[in-house]
């Protein structure tokens, strides 16, 4: 088994990389004619409308993958009430858009999470909670937990902390909404385009791979 990461890492959607090309900040007429802001074409306008609807109706898959799920309960209930932001829990992956990876992922869990993620219809986003998904956190030396989620699944928003407070979750969701509205949150597209790379990483860590190549 080759243990180095095979290909150079593709740019990832999450904040830790932040290498996605952005529009120039100060675009205006004085920068030249080609930089002049133009009215969006029909396609772009439609995409914007679509993204606006998507951002305002996020359906979270009810899968508490780790201990971060305990702060999802205050978030979903009377005190923080995520439903006022249009975020609702859906019990089945077929109808969800957002997968919250709430903390560390054991290898056994990772397999199920991959399966659930691939069953979700596009566009879909991943919110990763806690330091464990970023670099292993508390369990960096544990033989059964992955140390870095974005090698296996495209992460759109990381929320750090152990565990992140509900306020941090709300802020993370608002960040996700902002990115969706701007059309930046396209981890799912990145996953499709680099499926081989992701699959290679996944198969390296899941030793008894018995999943199909893509779980429709």
């Amino acid at each position: 088994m080759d243990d180095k990461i095979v290909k150079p890492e593709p740019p990832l959607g999450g904040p830790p990389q932040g290498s996605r090309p952005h529009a120039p900040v100060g675009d205006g007429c004085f920068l030249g004619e080609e930089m002049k802001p133009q009215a969006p074409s029909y396609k772009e306008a439609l995409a914007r409308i679509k993204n606006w609807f998507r951002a305002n109706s996020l359906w979270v898959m009810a899968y508490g993958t780790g201990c971060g799920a305990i702060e999802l309960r205050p978030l979903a209930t009377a005190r923080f009430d995520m439903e006022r932001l249009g975020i609702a829990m859906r019990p089945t992956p077929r109808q969800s858009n957002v997968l919250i990876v709430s903390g560390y992922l054991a290898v056994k869990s990772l397999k199920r999470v991959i399966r659930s993620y691939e069953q979700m219809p596009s566009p879909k986003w991943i919110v990763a909670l806690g330091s464990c998904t970023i670099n292993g956190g508390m369990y960096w030396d544990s033989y059964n937990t992955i140390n870095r989620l974005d090698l296996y699944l495209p992460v759109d928003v990381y929320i750090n902390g152990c565990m992140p407070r509900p306020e941090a979750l709300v802020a993370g969701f608002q960040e996700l909404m902002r990115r969706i509205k701007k059309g930046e949150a396209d981890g799912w597209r990145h996953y499709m385009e680099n499926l081989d790379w992701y699959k290679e990483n996944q198969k390296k860590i899941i030793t008894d791979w018995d999943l199909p190549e893509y779980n429709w």
Partner: protein
Amino acid sequence: MTETRERSKEVQIWFGPQHPGITGNMSVQTWLDGDTLTRGITHVGYLHRAFEKLMERRLYIQSFPIVCRICVPEPDTNEWLLASALEELSGLDREVPEKARWIRTLVLEMSRLGAMLMVLGGHAGSMGLGPAPQWMIALRDLVLDRFEELTGGRVYHMYIVYGGVRRDLPEGFAERMEQTLKTIESKLPLIDDVIFGSAVFRKRAMGVGVVPREWAFEMGISGPVIRAMGIPKDVRKDEPYEKYAELDFDVVTEEGSDIFARAMVRRREIQQSIDLIRQILARMPKEGPYCAELPNMLEWTIPVGQTYVRAESSRGEMGYYVVTDGSKKLRRVHVRGPSYVHGVSLLERLIPGTNIADLAPLMVSLQVCPPEIER
């Protein structure tokens, strides 16, 4: 041949891990015949983080951030168990100051209260009763606020350390705690009406998931499950630790051993916890040190020994089996959670004959906490 035909009538259904009715990230593989489950196998390991392995390569003081993550709803029991086991083995337990003992009792009881509030909500939620879990979790949040004030953390506290606790009670804590308790108490009658007064809840919960009395001792059942059988077993009474011997309370028991009885035990223990917190705050010494003089924690060694300490968590008897070998690190720690018995052996024995609709309420009533099973 007949067996094949029998089996072919059954539908295999995976209850979890991605399932809103399951208690945490675990799964039960069940076989369904009509509406009745014929057998089930518990699958765990989705949350295995190898706590016991990691603690073997951490210093004693470094084990605290790890240990509280074993059970998320109620982390303080774990902290106390590790602290008390190692204090017992190192002889430090004679030096724990009086006030620290009171504060520890307070923290343990607060965490029991918070966990109990959440589980009683889960009882209702697993049957599809919407408002009660929402209210209960909001009430639990009030307890978490007090925890935040006391320890700095909402969920993970890392507050109990060797020789005492990490810091003193903040000023005016008792008054604010009393306010919180009053708020919780004022809402409890409403919750009684909605949960226990509901005819549908009674119909669903009574006579379902009955654990036979003969299994009680042989299987090592503990906590609300055994108290719902009418057997007054409570570690806080049987082997009183910290200040529980000085507190005035009775073991809550109910008859029936079904889901309703377990919910009722939890409901009455919420009241009991509230009373206990009041007693603790009233009798706690105002002055005094909150932590013993500690040796240099980076160089601390504990002589060879092994022990088993236990405490009453909201789920039942939680125990730590700790082995030291004279070095700076633990030789072995084995976490004996009540869910280990409740969630695997007992659940698998209870599943045959259960209606599929009753599996989620049954699991909630056993209060299965998967991180405790696999650690």
